[in-house]
């Protein structure tokens, strides 16, 4: 891989981490969805670049799915949902923004240390791609645990999944990437439909005890 193509791939993967950070401090759902659209666009560019440099045509399909499904259809559907549910104004955060950002930085540092340490035998590109991808995954997880709103949890899950697609696209010649992308898209479509149909606003943040006591055994 040439110097230039390496740099561009690096830039796009790093850009994805940066956009993940931007999502952490968006405190309005509308802005969060805009940032997620940007996330999907950066992923599209990163995957398309991989398809070109690796000469792997099937990755163009993955890029197309990322563009059409994640950058257009899903944000569009979520805009409608949050307006219908009347929750487009705010995102409730369990932890403050500053603390979350610090935790995010810690996670990125962790993933870079871990990944660069264990992948000493892999190529320079694979190493850094995996480190960036793990950062995006961990930031997505962080977002899922620090938000209470179901829609922003879904957005957190989708950004996590973008990190996985980045890792899969960067692993040279990995088969089934398209199939996995499709499987994930179906999963996300189900989640979004679920949020819409059942008007799920808040995440259910109890772990079996506490508030759940009142439901126990009272079904039907």
């Amino acid at each position, binding site marked *: 891989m040439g110097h230039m193509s390496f740099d561009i791939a690096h830039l796009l993967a790093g850009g994805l981490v940066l956009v993940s950070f931007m999502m952490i401090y968006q405190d309005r759902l509308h802005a969060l969805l805009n940032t997620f659209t940007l996330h999907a666009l950066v992923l599209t560019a990163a995957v398309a670049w991989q398809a070109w440099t690796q000469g792997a045509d099937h990755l163009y399909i993955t890029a197309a799915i990322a563009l059409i499904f994640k950058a257009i259809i899903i944000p569009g559907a979520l805009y409608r949902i949050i307006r219908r549910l009347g929750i487009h104004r705010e995102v409730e955060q369990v932890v403050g923004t500053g603390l979350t950002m610090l935790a995010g930085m810690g996670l990125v540092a962790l993933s870079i240390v*871990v*990944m660069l*340490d*264990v*992948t*000493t*035998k*892999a190529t320079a590109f*694979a190493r850094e791609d*995996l480190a960036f*991808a*793990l950062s995006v*995954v961990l930031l997505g*997880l962080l977002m*899922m645990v620090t938000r209470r709103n*179901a829609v922003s*949890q879904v957005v957190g*899950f989708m950004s*996590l*999944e973008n990190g*996985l697609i980045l*890792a*899969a696209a960067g*692993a*040279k*010649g*990995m*088969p*089934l990437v398209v*199939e*996995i992308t499709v*499987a994930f898209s*179906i*999963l996300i479509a*189900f*989640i979004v439909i*679920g949020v819409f149909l*059942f008007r*799920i606003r808040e*995440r*259910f943040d109890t*772990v*079996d005890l506490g508030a*759940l006591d009142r*439901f*126990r*055994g*009272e*079904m*039907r």
Partner: protein
Amino acid sequence: MSPVVLVLIVPAAASALLALLPGYRLGARLNVVASLLTFLAAAALLVLPRPAPNDYLLVDDLNIVFIVLNCFVGLTAAMFSAGYIGHEIETGHLSPPYVRFYHAMYQLMMFGMNLALVTNNIGLMWVAIELATLTTVLMVGIYRTHEALEAAWKYFILGSVGIALALFGTILVYVAAQPVLGDGTPSMVWTNLMKGAPHFDPALLNLAFIFLMLGYGTKVGLAPLHAWLPDAHAEGPTPISAVLSGLLLNVALYAVLRFKMLMAAQPAAIAPGPLMVGMGLLSLIFAAFMLYRRRDIKRFFAYSSIEHMGIITFAFGMGGPLANFAGLLHMVMHSLTKSAIFYSVGQIVQIKGTQKIDRIRGLSQSHPALGWGLALAILAIAGMPPFGVFLSEFLVVSSTFARAPALALLLVFGLLVAFGALLLHLNSLIFGEPDSPPTPVRISPSAFRLHMAIVLMAGIYLPGPLVDWFQNVARLLG
């Protein structure tokens, strides 16, 4: 056509057919027939010579145990489900269109689980486990009550995170394999991976295994990643609780075991055992204490499943021929006993109209057959002789005592705590004054009796060929 293809095609075709056919009676019958055909195909795999593994399908000594068990419990659960669903329609809890959807999803779930078990490809395995998860999520939420939707949502989100972590682990395995086995599909095929494993980068494999253990461990229901499991069991239809406990947890465990074998093939990588032993013990002891304060009968048995999955993971984590044998036997015994318990509980809940343990009393007086049957099943799952669970638990404990007495003490402690909780609830469920007049039981107890008979048989006498077969698998697991 090879039976291994039939094991996949029959459920897939039945799912499409069931989605099109109206009429729940016809659907329920077709569901049983399709499950029976799948089971026969799985049984044929035992007898006929096995097809050579290709890039996508693999049948070996290990997965055939899981396939036969899966198809057998799938069949009995379909038989139980036919009666259960009929009652739910009569009482208006479910409407015919939902039941049609339920039957189609049931067969799709069987397809997903069988595909995960027979596939030779780690990527396809991941897709199949995701498919099985999605279909069960839809079935858990089928009652559309607030609690059912909440349980389905929680299951969905935690399951998705687990599955995402497992995918990252799968990608890492590919990255480790790619320099050795080359680009593309060959680097995702089990049989190739096992051959090439000694040359893989150990550090990368270590990291991959941690992700895979956390990811698939969520689906096995290991503490601290178990939060979805009790809700999903309590709020879904009871046949699905039986299938979740008896089968889906096993399928996820199968994935963990396969990756454990891969780790064992590279001596420079970390030993996967201690991680599995730790998570197994934690699940066992945590679930044993949680059993005491449960007030919902299905939730109670869901925690018991976490406990037993902990024991099984512990046994496989210890490794060695004896502990692996015990783990495998315990897995089979737990699947059969726990699904039998759910068949019995499903009828009790329908008769009494409640899942609250407080309000289910005096079963031995109001419904003697059902009550005593459940009492025997609870004694069996608590590990009392002469049932098969006693035998497998005894083997787990004795093999551990020989190698790590301190761990064995913790194990026995967990088992005793759980035993106490089971006896306590057994007492309140079976004895005491019944608070409702006896109502007739509608569902045929054949599925329940069949399972209990096998569990009892296994406790008294294990046939020689079965022992040889399991010992062979135990050696394979390392």
